[in-house]
Structures are given as C-alpha cells and as structure tokens.
C-alpha cells in the first residue's frame, strides 16, 4: 500500500461524500416540500438539480463575519473540527466486500482496522467538540445556550447508542465491521434477534445528529439557530456538511450492524447497491421523522433519554447476552 494509493482513495471518498451531501440536501428539501404539499427547490436547473451548485457559490462569496468579542482561534477552528471529525469517522465504514475492476482488487473503505466500530464511536464522541467550541467561542447568548444543550443531549444519547452497539458486539463477538456483515450473510440479520437494540440505535442516531425532533441545539423558534448563529458563509456550510456526513455515517452503521450490510434480503445476493439502498431508506427515515414530529421540549428530551432509552439499552443487553448464552447463532 503506497501513500499515493491511500491518498487517491481518500480524495475519491471525500469527493463522493461531499457530492452525496449536496444531493441529499436537495433531496431533503424536496422531500420536506412534498410532505408540506409544495414543490421544494425547482428554479435552479431542471427540477432544482443545480441548487447545490448555486448554494456553494453563494456560500463562497458570503462575507465571513466574526462577532467582536469572539475567541478568534476557537471560532475559526470549530467548524473545521466538526467537519474533519465527521469525515474521519466515515474512513473505516466498509461500503462493500471488495470491488473487482479488471485485475485490480479494491477494498471499499479507506481503512479497515480490526476494531472499526470503536474508532467510529470514538470519533463521534469527539464530534461534540465542534459544536460546543463553536457555540462557546461565538460570544453570543443564543450560541452558548445552543451548544450547552447540544453537548448535554449528545452525551445523553450517546450512552443509549453505545448500549445498542454493545448488544450488536455481543451478538457477533467482534468489533470488526466486515466480520459482522459476513456473519449476517451466513445467519439472520442482526435486527431480528436485536430488534430492541435497532430501535434504540434508530432513535439515538437521530439525536446524535442533532436533527428534528431532537434538534434542541438549533431550535429556530427559541434560539434562532443555536450554536451556529454567528457563523456565516463557508464556515456555516462546514457545520451543515458535518451534520449530513454524520447522517451518512449513522445510516451506514445502522445498515451494517443491524440490517445485513451489503447482503440482500432473502438471499438475493450481495452488492454495494444493497448497502446504498439501505442507507437511502435510513436517510429517508431521518427526513420522514423530521417532517412528522414536532420538536421535543428540553426536559422531555432529557427524561426520554435517561429514563427510557438507557434502561431499555441495559435490558436489551441482558436479553442479547441470554440469547447468545442459549446458543445464539453458533
């Protein structure tokens, strides 16, 4: 593995992720539009398909403002932290077994360490820093409150999310994402014994990405835009990109851990497209939830996380370890 080879793959993945970001964002605006009986973006290009290009040009040209009392270094660093952490977490996500292009055999991830899932969880935890530093450095009351809320929310739901992941690890007995998926090809999908774990993961992933109905960090009705009130132009875009890349990571993780990864249902073969289809469904679920549920109140959010999801996570862990102790799949 030469350095150039890794570099090429990294660049390809970054470009793919950011293109996917651009179009998933248009798709989200479209989906939200249709849910609300309107068209969504239609003006720029055919069916609004050039909208992301227009947005990018606009973002690049926006004046880069900084509030007077802001902590300069942290204010400039925070969006980059949010984005590179989100991108870094995707580095270990395998999109398929291996691709054969001519005589070339390509693994479909930038790296595949033995303990991929731990790496993803670790980086997702670091993701809190982008939000909390950005909000604190802004010298704005809305931003500070938004970032505090986001921090408390993300740590609370991370616990439930971690419990769901641990139940999957017990089920497969490994931390390697590739091995997990190949085990689901031989046996059943993870979600069949671990349905409760999947449900917790689903809720936890919406909360981890700070998306409606858990978007208390942004809460435009009360905090204007939460932690990124004071950001403009491309720095603001970095936060949005980080949010979407986190959604991709979460949807890929959900598909790999619980929905059989790149294996088709009913033994219908396996390919990258199955995984992408599952991710697309998962992303649609994010949008569906956003357009259906009203935002929670903050105390409801915290008690939902701590009084329901955390004990359910522990119970689920006990159930899965009973299942495995009784023989499980082995």
């Amino acid at each position: 593995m030469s350095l150039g080879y890794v570099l090429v793959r990294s660049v390809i993945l970054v470009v793919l992720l950011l293109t996917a970001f651009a179009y998933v964002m248009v798709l989200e605006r479209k989906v939200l539009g249709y849910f609300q009986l309107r068209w969504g973006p239609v003006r720029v290009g055919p069916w609004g398909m050039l909208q992301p290009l227009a947005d990018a040009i606009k973002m690049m040209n926006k004046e880069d403002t900084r509030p007077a009392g802001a902590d300069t270094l942290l204010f400039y660093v925070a969006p980059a932290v949010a984005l590179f952490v989100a991108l870094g977490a995707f580095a270990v996500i395998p999109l398929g077994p291996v691709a054969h292009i001519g005589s070339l055999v390509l693994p479909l991830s930038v790296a595949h360490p033995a303990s991929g899932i731990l790496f993803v969880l670790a980086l997702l935890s670091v993701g809190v820093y982008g939000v909390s530093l950005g909000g604190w450095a802004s010298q704005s009351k809305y931003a500070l409150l938004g970032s505090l809320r986001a921090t408390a929310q993300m740590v609370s739901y991370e616990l439930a999310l971690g419990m769901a992941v641990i139940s999957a690890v017990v089920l497969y007995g490994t931390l390697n994402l590739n091995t997990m998926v190949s085990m689901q090809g031989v046996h059943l999908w993870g979600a069949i014994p671990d349905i409760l774990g999947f449900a917790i993961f689903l809720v936890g992933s919406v909360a981890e990405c700070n998306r409606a109905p858990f978007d208390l960090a942004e809460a435009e009705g009360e905090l204007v835009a939460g932690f990124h009130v004071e950001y403009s132009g491309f720095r603001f875009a970095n936060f949005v990109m980080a949010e979407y890349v986190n959604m991709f990571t979460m949807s890929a993780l959900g598909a790999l851990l619980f929905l059989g990864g790149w294996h088709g249902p009913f033994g219908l073969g396996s390919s990258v497209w199955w995984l992408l289809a599952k991710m697309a469904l998962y992303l649609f679920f994010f949008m569906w939830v956003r357009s259906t549920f009203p935002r929670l109140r903050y105390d409801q959010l915290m008690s939902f996380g701590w009084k329901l999801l955390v004990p359910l996570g522990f119970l689920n862990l006990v159930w899965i370890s009973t299942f495995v102790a009784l023989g499980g799949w082995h």
Partner: protein
Amino acid sequence: MGKYLDILVFVIGGIAFPVGVVTLGGSLRRSYPDPAKEASYESGETPFGDARIRFHIGYYIFALIYLVFDVEAVFLYPWAVQYLHLSRGIAFGEIVVFVVMLLIGWFYAWRKKVLSWM
C-alpha cells in the same frame, strides 16, 4: 499500524478541505467590517453584557452522570468481544451483577431527582 496511517492520511485530507476552501474563498469574497456587523445577534435588540453567562447547573450534573456511565460502558466492550469465548454461564452471571450495580446507581440518581430537568 498501517491501517491507522491510512486513516491519518484521510483525516489530513478532511482537515485540508475546510481550511483550503475557506482560504481560497477569502480571495473571492468581499469584506467590509463594521461594528454593527460584529455585534452578536440578539434578535435585533442591542446586545448587552457578556455572553458567557452563568448557566444551569443541570448541564454539569448530566455531564457527571454521563461520565460515570460511560466509563463503566468502557468495561462492557472487552467483555462483549470475549463473551463467545468465555464460559457463558459465569460470564452471563458476572455481567448481570455488573449491570444491576449500574442500575442501582442509576435508580438512586432518579430517586434523588437528578434525572428530571428543573
């Protein structure tokens, strides 16, 4: 370690992208600084006081409980990986004891009304 080096290359690319675009964009965009633009946004009111206000103690308390649970969750990972290879009855009993101890602490926090947001 080679695999983690790959990730490092990727992460450097991830840092280079936002930094690079913001730097490049600097030559495209105009900049007219103005005291009114630099004021922090408070819904159109004139901002007053320092924004780093005192905030609710509840955030600290949740952070503390989280820390306790998270450190204990760390112990669950090695157990989870090795569970298949251990003597299952004993390993299961041990984890039930561990989870019950966690839940006692959690229940205590609940009864002390720490988990309800005031």
